[in-house]
């Protein structure tokens, strides 16, 4: 495939994309004084509409998405993104609404937010949600702020530690430390859950809370969850549920019932909204009753079948984002819930788990399975059982690219050596799963019989394996005119 020029390379003096109308108002005597004007034009590309369309169309064709193929990227729930949701999200009545419109003129969108709060409360077993956070990590940050606000509201300033399992996602510790919390890592036990003994040792008066994903990043449900919650609660800490893996348990078990005080969801995972090449997402945060006062403002209330914003929440942590969250993402997730219904959501989780177990059992022959239990919606393998020296998990991943399959998450969680974290989701057909298994087995065979194929993979992608080390050593982070 030919390399695609940069859009700047297509630039030619005098070319123009869109034609703008002239001014229809009388020339004004007053205007912004020249001293405020920029002296140098920004070097934006001067290109035609054809140029722009061809350029970005060509770029799109060098990208793998769910619509182009299987995408079992563990922890990311790359499920099919229903097209009807995209259409709904494009309705002028939604896209055109200014966030500062009077409430009377925002009732449609307010209804979405109001109902979504209710739906997510029911799905998670919490008491109230804020839909403001823009992504999972943003939800975590919001949640951690609530933890802080809660303790401080009780005059309890000594809790400066957050406990996080060694298997946790990087955003968990990063979130905690952004707020100045010390991160205490709790070990995992041999079944992949939290080491209860260790937890007991570290939980104490300085524990602000515990952040936990359940099923965890190994795809395993922590069977001791009730005990874990008890330990942390007894120590005076709060329980934070990272909802990245909720796709395993919808309609089956709810974080609120497990004992969690705060939860964030990733609408762009569990609730089918597209990942947009890296975003936008949406990371609603739900809390139990006692934490409700601390939620960000505004919340949406309803009175006499009229929806309105409630800003009058004196204990609120404040705002974590302009306006009310990534509305359009929330809208798509809302449409998804309406399309699925209660049975559909449960069936989604059941099927996600079925699919994961099905693949796991087919692959354990050729790949190391560190935790031999039924998994939930995903599972983690620990590299190849049999292979030529030097063949890595990265090689396996890159070889998958040649088959039009996006590789699983690799080298995460950190506690599994050479990890391959595989999450098929429920939107894949058995044929796709079978094909994946076949290809993974083929790769295992190549690792022994024709390892060069792996080392040099990928072979048929738009570019071959890229040098990430050079990129970081000599950063080229923008185009420059020469």
């Amino acid at each position, binding site marked *: 495939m030919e390399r695609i020029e940069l859009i700047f390379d297509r630039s030619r003096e005098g070319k123009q994309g869109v034609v703008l109308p002239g001014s229809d108002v009388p020339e004004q005597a007053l205007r912004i004084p020249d001293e405020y004007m920029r002296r140098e034009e920004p070097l934006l590309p001067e290109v035609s509409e054809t140029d722009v369309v061809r350029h970005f169309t060509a770029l799109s*064709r060098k990208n793998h998405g769910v619509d182009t193929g299987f995408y079992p990227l563990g922890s990311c729930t790359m499920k099919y993104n229903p097209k009807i949701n995209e259409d709904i999200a494009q309705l002028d009545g939604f896209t055109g609404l200014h966030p500062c419109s009077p409430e009377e003129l925002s009732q449609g969108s307010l*209804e979405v937010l109001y109902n979504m709060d209710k739906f997510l409360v029911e799905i998670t077993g919490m008491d109230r949600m804020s839909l403001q956070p823009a992504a999972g990590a943003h939800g975590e940050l919001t949640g951690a702020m609530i933890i802080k606000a809660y303790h401080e509201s009780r005059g309890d300033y000594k809790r400066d530690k957050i406990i996080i399992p060694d298997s946790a996602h990087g955003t968990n510790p990063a979130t905690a430390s952004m707020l100045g919390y010390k991160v205490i890592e709790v070990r995992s036990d041999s079944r992949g859950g939290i080491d209860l003994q260790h937890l007991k040792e570290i939980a104490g008066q300085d524990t602000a809370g515990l952040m936990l994903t359940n099923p965890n990043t190994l795809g395993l449900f922590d069977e001791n969850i009730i005990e874990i919650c008890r330990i942390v609660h007894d120590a005076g800490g709060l329980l934070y549920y990272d909802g990245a893996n909720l796709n395993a348990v919808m309609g089956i078990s709810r974080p609120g019932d497990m004992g969690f005080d705060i939860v964030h969801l990733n609408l762009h995972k569990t609730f089918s909204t597209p990942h947009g*090449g890296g975003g936008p997402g949406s990371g609603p945060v739900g809390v139990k009753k006692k934490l409700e006062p601390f939620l960000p403002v505004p919340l949406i209330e309803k009175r006499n079948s009229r929806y309105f914003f409630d800003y009058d929440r004196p204990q609120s942590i*404040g*705002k974590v984002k302009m306006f009310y969250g990534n509305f359009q993402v929330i809208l798509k997730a809302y449409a998804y819930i309406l399309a699925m219904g209660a049975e559909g959501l449960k069936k989604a989780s059941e099927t996600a788990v079925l699919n994961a177990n099905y693949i796991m059992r087919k692959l354990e022959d050729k790949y190391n399975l560190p935790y031999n239990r039924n998994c939930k919606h995903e599972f983690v393998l620990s590299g190849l059982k049999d292979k030529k020296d030097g063949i890595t998990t990265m090689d396996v991943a890159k070889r998958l690219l040649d088959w039009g399959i996006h590789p699983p998450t690799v080298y995460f969680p950190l506690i599994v050596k050479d990890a391959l974290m595989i999450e098929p989701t429920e939107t894949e057909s058995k044929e796709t799963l079978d094909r994946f298994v076949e290809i993974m087995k083929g790769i295992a065979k190549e690792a022994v019989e024709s390892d060069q194929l792996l080392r040099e993979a990928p072979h048929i992608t738009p570019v071959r394996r890229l040098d990430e080390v050079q990129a970081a050593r000599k950063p080229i982070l923008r185009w420059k005119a020469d």
Partner: protein
Amino acid sequence: MHPYIPITEVDREEMLASIGAGSIEELFEDIPEVIRLGRKLELPDRKPEMELRNYFRELSMKNGSDYLCFRGAGAYRHYIPSIIGHIVSRSEFYTAYTPYQPEVSQGILQAIFEYQTMICELTGMDVSNASVYDGATAAAEAVFMAADITGRSKVLLPLSVSPDVRRVISTYCKASGIEVVEAAYSQGLTDINDLKSKLDSETAAVVVQSPNFFGCIEPCRELFESVHASGAAAVMHADPISLGMLESPAELGADIAVGDGQPLGNPLNFGGPYLGFMAVREKHMRRLPGRIVGETVDRHANRGFVLTLQAREQHIRREKASSNICTNQALNALTAAVYLSIMGSKGLKKVAELCMQKSYYAAQVIAGISKYSLAFGSPFFREFVVKSSSKAGDINLKLMEQNIIGGYELENDYPELKNHMLFCVTEIISKKDIDNLVNILGRRGR
């Protein structure tokens, strides 16, 4: 069958047999009985696609999105060229995730590389990240960066900065122990004397927004000189459309440029998703939060792009990361890149000029009505504050009857600005629209 779940009954049986499980329930046996939900979730019955479409069509019409809108206040209705929708709806873009596997993600990677370049060009800075959540969180992240750079822990926020931006910064700062101090404004601009009086050796950063919340263009050069004199970092919150015309943050002396990229082709969408942009000088490159795309080569020395400088990020550095951000606003950044491509420097400048001409015209004719005057005498961009002798709320009600959303009522956020309204006029507002507004404003009270 449920929509979006293509596993048939037969498949299910086969798969369970293959796993060696007797039932689906068996796969969930590790969940303690007491925390299993013994009932169905209480949610509305599922709607077939056809009903869904009808429901949402009706719901969307409960919004007054078709009203003529003179409100900005952080979200702007600019013209969105057709091609943007055609490009961002390419499913290879929107159904992908963060480009962890660069070999099959060159599309979004190159687009973000181009986006970064454009943001650098607009701001005059050296390095841009791949976007954060929005302009407000960008400002908050910038304050964190500044605290990190300076080792100080106080931030000065002039009241002329958008209230929502200040709120978000405050929320972030409060939770992480950074002190927030407000600075006054006068004539719609940061009160430089007040600011100076509050700058001290503890000040990590000053955040200046320009054009500020009132639409006024701040004397940034002067402000930043004072900021630098105290050893603090100058964070400038800029509007990207205005940068087609106004001096760049880097030229004005800012250390960190942030802002909201919404106006660059992103629809209003009741407040999101938008994107926050962040750009810094090279020396701060490794403290920048979020994804950054860099150029490299493949094993055949062909050019390619990858996520880089990941040693800053949470998935590598965990608690030592420069931020916790993971998912960002990539599709909105793509949108901005397409917008800036189709506009070019000339087009962007033209948009900015149209905004200026039309808003100056609107300001002049509104000020020409008795009972209305301009609140501030400073130069402004796209937005201006009007003071009325009638109640702002009443005026807006009257306008609403004529399918017009009037200026933003500033009293919400500035108790001292009773009956002050912030009007916004962009290139999509026609002279006829303005004259229509003025006509209604000028009518005798009812």
